């Protein structure tokens, strides 16, 4: 790591050498997953470079559109081949069965290239950006390859935009504060992953989602809340580590999570959860579908379509479809309520003018109620995301409402981990600032010792077998 950070800064500013180094580092990192699959991000990067170039140089809007469509089809083709091949094969099998035709099992077991959903989406966004504004064209193909294969983000995001990333490649300066923050981010990410996500997974979530009927209703309910915390800590933990490593190399990444369980409606939730994907879906799917420009009904329909596709982005599985559709309904309803409120409130009427002490209490109670409802709704919908299939999801729901006190219980440590996971989203930014300020005052050796001590403590808090990051499978 010393060598990578040192070389990164030694070569920064040297245009060609730095690009060669960073590309080599990216490819080396991805090759550790599997050597043969190395060609995939290169192919995605190069195809997007070529088609973006064709889009920018094409004369006439129809030709530009053709090149853009080819690019999108190609990227989605990569994604479909590696991610949806088995599903499509089984669809074909199901179609042929009634005709007495029997397909053999899939002849190849395709290796799933980790991160394919993330870097293909980055590629698509680049080409669409160039289509919308030819000034976004990146002239150097290596820069596009660096953008697609940047190693801190290639496995599970955050999903970047070329316009954010590429200008940073030639930025020669470093930011001392950014280095301090990067240590804190990596430590917070490790804490979220090892001490909370892995612990919760091992001690309650996995068992409850596998055999819900064996547990008491309160344990199953806690298991559902625990999964909400697990997936937050797992994914935001990865994003923190990726952001920390990128900052050590001098790159700023977009924020991916901003206190998602502190919001008071589903619309807000999607503005705070996996922000890089939800903004991607907004910019490259919801808006092209017409967004909210074509009437209210069309807006709700677009929201539904966006959420369903967002659900299926996770994989060709009915559970993701159902989860996306349910979020789509919740989101459409939230928009509908907001639209009704807007039409009911008379123009120029200030609702805050009547604010007295009693209405302030009422507002707080209402806000707390809205938060409670939203957190429970989002947690409830995670059941459909995580359960093996819809019948298992219903089994979990039944186990909660059976009000069964007899089944197996839970360890007290789980409650503490769930509470810690819920609180860390609020306390995390403050802890980061405090850690950075404290570190700044210390000599190098003490800083290193403190980081090592915290690392060891975190490793001790986690279970011996750490499951992989949840979003690596998407």
């Amino acid at each position, binding site marked *: *790591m*010393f060598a990578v*950070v*040192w070389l*990164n*800064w030694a070569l920064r500013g040297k245009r060609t050498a730095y690009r060669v180094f960073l590309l080599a580092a990216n490819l080396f990192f991805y090759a*550790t997953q*599997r*050597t043969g699959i190395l060609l995939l991000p290169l192919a995605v990067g190069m195809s997007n470079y070529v088609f973006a170039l064709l889009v920018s140089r094409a004369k006439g809007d129809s030709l530009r559109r053709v090149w853009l469509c080819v690019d999108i089809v190609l990227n989605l083709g990569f994604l479909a081949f590696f991610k949806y091949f*088995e599903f499509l*094969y*089984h669809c074909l*099998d*199901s179609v042929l*069965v009634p005709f007495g035709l*029997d*397909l053999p*099992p*899939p*002849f*190849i*077991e*395709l*290796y*799933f290239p980790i991160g394919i959903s993330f870097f293909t989406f980055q590629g698509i966004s680049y080409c669409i950006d160039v289509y919308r504004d030819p000034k976004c064209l990146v002239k150097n193909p290596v820069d596009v390859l660096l953008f697609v294969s940047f190693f801190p983000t290639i496995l599970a995001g955050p999903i970047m935009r070329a316009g954010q990333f590429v200008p940073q490649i030639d930025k020669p300066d*470093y930011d*001392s504060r950014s*280095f*301090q923050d*990067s*240590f804190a981010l990596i430590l917070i990410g490790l804490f979220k992953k090892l001490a909370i996500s892995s612990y919760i997974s*091992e001690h309650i979530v*996995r*068992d409850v989602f*596998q*055999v819900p*009927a*064996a547990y008491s209703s309160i344990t199953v309910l806690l298991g559902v809340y625990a999964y909400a915390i697990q997936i937050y800590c797992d994914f935001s933990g990865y994003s923190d580590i990726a952001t920390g490593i990128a900052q*050590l190399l001098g790159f700023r990444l977009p924020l991916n999570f901003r206190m998602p369980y502190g919001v008071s409606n589903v619309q807000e939730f999607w503005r705070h959860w996996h922000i890089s994907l939800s903004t991607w879906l907004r910019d490259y799917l919801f808006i092209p579908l017409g967004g909210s420009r074509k009437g209210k009904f069309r807006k709700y329909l677009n929201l539904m379509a966006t959420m369903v596709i967002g659900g299926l982005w996770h994989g060709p599985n009915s559970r993701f479809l159902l989860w996306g559709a349910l979020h789509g309904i919740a989101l459409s309803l939230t928009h509908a309520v907001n639209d009704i409120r807007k039409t009911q409130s008379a123009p120029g009427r200030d609702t805050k003018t009547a604010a007295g002490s009693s209405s302030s209490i009422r507002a707080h109670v209402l806000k707390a109620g809205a938060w409670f409802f939203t957190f429970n709704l989002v947690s409830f919908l995670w059941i459909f995301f995580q359960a*093996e299939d819809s019948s298992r999801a219903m089994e979990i729901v039944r186990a909660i409402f059976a009000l069964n006190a007899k089944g197996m219980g839970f360890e007290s440590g789980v409650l503490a981990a769930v509470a810690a996971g819920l609180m860390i989203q609020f306390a995390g930014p403050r802890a980061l600032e405090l850690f950075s300020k404290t570190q*700044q*005052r210390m000599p*190098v*050796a003490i*800083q*290193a*010792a403190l*980081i*090592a001590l915290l*690392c*060891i403590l975190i*490793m001790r808090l986690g*279970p*011996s*077998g*750490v*499951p992989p990051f949840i979003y690596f499978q998407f």
Partner: protein
Amino acid sequence: MKKNKELTPVKAALIYSIALVLVVFYELPRVLSWVEETRWKLASCEMFESIGPNQLPVSKAAGASDNTDPARSESREAEAEGMDAEKAAVSGPGSTENSPQAAPAGPNASGPMESPAVPSVPQAEKSETTAPEAQKPKFKPHKVLLVGDSMIAEGFGPALQRRLRKQASLEIVRKGQYSTGLVHQEDFNWASVLKEFIQEHKPDLIVIQMGANDSIDILDGSGKRLYCGNDPWRVVYASRVRDFLKVASEQKIMSFWVGLPIMGSEKYCSKIRVINSIVEQECAKLSGCVYLDSWAALADSQGKYTAFTKGPDGKQTRIRAKDNVHLTEAGGAILTDYFLRAASGQVDLCAGAETGSAGSAQ
């Protein structure tokens, strides 16, 4: 003054590196085991490749293993040719030369030949008593403990738990621990953990499936590397299996060790066969320990590895995870059927009467 406090890239890299060295130094055993696992994963990268036709019916594949007498292997091949492919596939690692079950004359050895659905139940020493015991009322457990690595944490473990808990009289406790086994004991020593589980839960039957993480070299106390599958490795691994099984045996708790099923990579398969055969031998030495061979439970009708099976509705169902090692829930249900049928001769789990809906890989 301000300049001194500024964190330059070199200082940042230095801090990071010192911290890393300190962590590695303090957590050396953990880091070494992680390095070993990574090395193993990289070495057996073929595990993730397309499914090849390399998984021979086991009796033949055993003949191809590194320490097999070619003459004996030839005779085994000739025997295998004499029976149909299914029968050959079900004989499992029990037919390797190291196996106490190698002699086809044993009652258990003949079992699978008659009924491909029932795996062999090898008990060399105990085989003499099998027939009279069959007359006695079968042991009826009340509390079953399922222990093992990720094979118990997912796939087989939850499927068996779901099936067994349909019997109101049975209490099931499942303890599956990812990334554990009998090779790396620095972090997680299964023998002492099992002792604690027994004290805490007081089971009267234990079902074990383990070993998927054990196809790696052992570093002995002096730091000497014992290469996986070599004789010194086998001796140490066998002693660890024995120590683990003794925990249950000494407390007179019956245990079933369900051997690992066929895997998707030939290289990994050959190591898993070694592990299965060691476990089989150790089970045979201890009273109350029964080894159930499940090698062929998830193989296709040719005895080869398959990741899919046709369900009763004619649809393809995935039974193995994409890593070609773990089982999906459907695969777990098939192995559960297999286990319940095989164990039904020894214990009364009732649940054996119900067959799963997942069908069979064959």
